[in-house]
């Protein structure tokens, strides 16, 4: 069964987006989106893990039997997360200090596992890699968007501390949108995560309805 790359990319970025399409990976989504920068960093780390684990599962898909596939998938995701953790600690230490606490959370994110089960276990290596990359990018964009909404309303800034994450060249991204004391603290606290995610979900569904797609529960399986 061949699936066009266009389809895979559109699924990952919009139609079947991990956060706004499948509503998966809510734990890191809520925990890490207190600012756009945090969301971006967490998204990128997840994208790396997703691309690598999709690739590995697709490579070994003919050797993994049905009965033990879940433990093997979890093993692969956990191994990738640990590698990212160690490598970032060693060579991207500034970034690690910002994100370090949250990288182990990727293991508990069901989005990578869902893509392994629904896609990489059945498809060849290259489409699986593309799926991992674009699902990861879609996740990153969603987290950054939620983080941006929470950060603008909650602390009045946008991409604060982005230069810690991306290097001093990205200092220009750091913006003060509202005066500093106008922040609504609740948006930074956990309830704000649910509010922002809900609002953005409504926006996405409205765009879909306007485009005549109607509301459909996508489910974790994208193969049609």
């Amino acid at each position, binding site marked *: 069964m061949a699936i066009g790359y266009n389809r895979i990319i559109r699924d990952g970025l919009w139609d079947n987006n991990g956060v706004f399409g499948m509503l998966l990976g809510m734990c890191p989504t809520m925990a890490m989106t207190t600012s756009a920068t945090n969301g971006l960093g967490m998204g990128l780390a997840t994208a790396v893990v997703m691309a690598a684990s999709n690739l590995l599962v697709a490579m070994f898909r003919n050797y993994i039997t049905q009965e*033990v596939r879940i433990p093997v998938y979890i093993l692969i995701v956990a191994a990738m997360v640990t590698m990212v953790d160690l490598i970032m*600690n060693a*060579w991207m*230490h500034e970034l690690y*200090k910002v994100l370090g606490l949250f990288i182990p959370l990727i293991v508990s994110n069901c989005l990578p596992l869902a893509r392994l089960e629904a896609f990489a276990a059945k498809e060849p290596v290259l489409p699986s890699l593309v799926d991992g990359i674009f699902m990861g990018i879609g996740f990153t964009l969603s987290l950054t968007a939620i983080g941006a909404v929470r950060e603008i309303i909650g602390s009045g800034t946008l991409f604060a501390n982005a230069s810690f994450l991306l290097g001093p060249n990205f200092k220009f991204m750091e913006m003060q949108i509202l005066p500093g004391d106008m922040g609504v*603290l609740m948006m930074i606290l956990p309830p704000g995560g649910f509010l922002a995610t809900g609002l953005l979900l409504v926006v996405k569904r409205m765009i879909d309805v306007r485009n005549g797609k109607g509301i459909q529960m996508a489910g974790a399986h994208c193969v049609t």
Partner: protein
Amino acid sequence: MKQPATKHALILGVFCFGFGLVLALTDLFTSKEIATRAMEDRQNSLSQVLPAAILDNNPVTNTVILKDAEGKEVTIYRATKADKITGVAFEIYGTGYAGEVKLMIGIDPASNILGVRVLAHKETPGLGDRIEEKKSDWILRFTGLALGNPPAEKWKVKKDGGQFDQFSGATITPRGVVSAIRNGLEFFAAHKQEILGAR
């Protein structure tokens, strides 16, 4: 199609072994680098409370380990200049609003505070996090103070009758920090001989 259980066990075993090996290799290549980074972090946090002007050694390598009142080990880093101890630093812990606040305190041999910095905390962003140096200069006010200055009964936040400001909307965090610093000073006073003694 049913396959024997031994086959599944074997497959799982092979994968576990393979990825175990991969992780062991990653650890082998990164562990040295990670240790260096941890050392740099330690030096960074020490250099914030031990001014560079007073030392010519690396305090990370000149330590004494003592036990505090609860039997917890405290590592004391000692700064020396021309072989004389010019300051010491150690970690102190306070109870904040959302758990432990970890701080580093620097004290000179005459028992005055050289500086205090927050290393880690989980306080509410926008309220309790003003104990961080990059968010507000609140923490700098402790520099130069000592146990008798202000007197012991004033080593509290204003709300408790002391002399230190709390923040609007956050009293528990500063209260925890102030009492952690006071405890740190008392710890230093009680162990002064051992801390400044033989190296």
